[in-house]
């Protein structure tokens, strides 16, 4: 496949682009050989479109905020802690929770490919898989975080975790101030995807309280 494949499509009158044709061809031969079932593929798509996603991780974080015992277990072994809760979906081994504090900010990357805690965050966003993020977050985290609108205080320690093996990292952002009276399920709504990667923080404003 060369560059030109992407630029000169539609020459045969088909409305499919070259990449679409290649994916279709791959699927066809695998189905024809009985190696892949179309219904299974549809279920996988359905799973990633509607079942997993940052809402899973957000519920985990919210519970950690309100339940010190769960948080303790989560920081010890996130996989076990989550799988012991009956109302969370099962997650794979070696999920590791890392906690932000007043003195420490954590941020996660995979410089070598695009490792990401799919179980709890769903599929990674395009920027997480992109060269700009993978190249710069390790050497210049403060500038990159600034581009996300996150300005860390000068003395704060920054740990950049590169997911180079089959361990997966979930950042536990700090609980926003002023949320003492808020329920666990409402707290989960404050936990953004980026806050669990470390490129954002969980935040709370009077306005969001009014609407909650």
């Amino acid at each position: 496949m060369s560059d030109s494949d992407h630029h000169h499509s539609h020459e045969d009158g088909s409305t499919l682009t070259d990449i679409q044709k290649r994916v279709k061809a791959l699927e066809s031969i695998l189905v024809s050989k009985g190696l892949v079932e179309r219904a299974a593929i549809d279920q996988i798509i359905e799973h990633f479109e509607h079942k997993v996603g940052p809402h899973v991780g957000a519920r985990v974080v919210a519970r950690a905020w309100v339940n010190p015992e769960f948080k303790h277990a989560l920081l010890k072994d996130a996989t076990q802690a989550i799988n012991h809760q009956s109302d969370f979906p099962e997650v794979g081994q070696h999920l590791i929770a890392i906690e932000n504090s007043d003195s420490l900010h954590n941020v996660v990357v995979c410089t070598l490919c695009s490792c990401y805690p799919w179980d709890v965050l769903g599929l990674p966003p395009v920027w997480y898989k992109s060269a700009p993020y993978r190249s710069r977050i390790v050497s210049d985290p403060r500038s990159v975080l600034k581009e996300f609108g996150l300005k860390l205080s000068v003395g704060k320690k920054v740990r950049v975790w590169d997911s180079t093996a089959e361990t997966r990292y979930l950042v536990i952002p700090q609980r926003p101030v002023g949320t003492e009276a808020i329920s666990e399920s409402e707290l989960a709504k404050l936990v953004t995807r980026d806050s669990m990667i470390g490129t954002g923080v969980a935040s709370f404003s009077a306005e969001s309280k009014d609407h909650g």
Partner: protein
Amino acid sequence: MDSIHDLGGMDGFGPVRPEHDEPVFHEKWEGSVLGLQRSILYLGLWNIDVFRHAQERIRPNEYLSWSYYERWTHTLIATALERGLFSDEEFRSGIADAVSSSAPLVPLTSRDTDKAFVRGNFEREGMGEPRFCVGDMVITKELRITGHTRLPRYARDKIGTIIAIRGRHVFPDAVVSHGKEDPQWLYTVEFEGSEIWGEAVDSTVSNLIDAFEPYLLRPEYD
């Protein structure tokens, strides 16, 4: 191999561009590619390390020009052809040969897709104790191999500290080079940012990687 995939510390790619309200898939075929990748890995002919290494072998200009799922599509087709999952002729025609010579493989069906959703466990029980303890100082090797490795260039020949032992895991370098799991102890190693980036980084930054035992030396002993 130290190809373009090893991006940590490179300059010149411009700013990170987060997309507001990004959809799970930007085009329908991207979902199909993901489904195909999961289904193919389920067949057990090769593992995630082999898939990653295939990505590393994409020519650098194409690696940078293609989208993520374009890279996946390319890699799935190339690896399937390489490993004989289907022939060139079968791929072109879309029709399976009458006599299939491949080993009996159990495909992923819609009854058991759940199995494909929980991440595989790469930890392996075994004899032996980890060589390093939490708190130990280690030096990462200046490791240049033609095969696959998970020690990024930026973290080589650097002094760091073991902060956690993660168990004994399948060793990706071995899986790709000779198909054996050859499990190794896995550690999280923390480096002062200045150890890696010199004066370019402020003293509050540290870098952490997960490093397999063969990547690590004991200062002054090895």
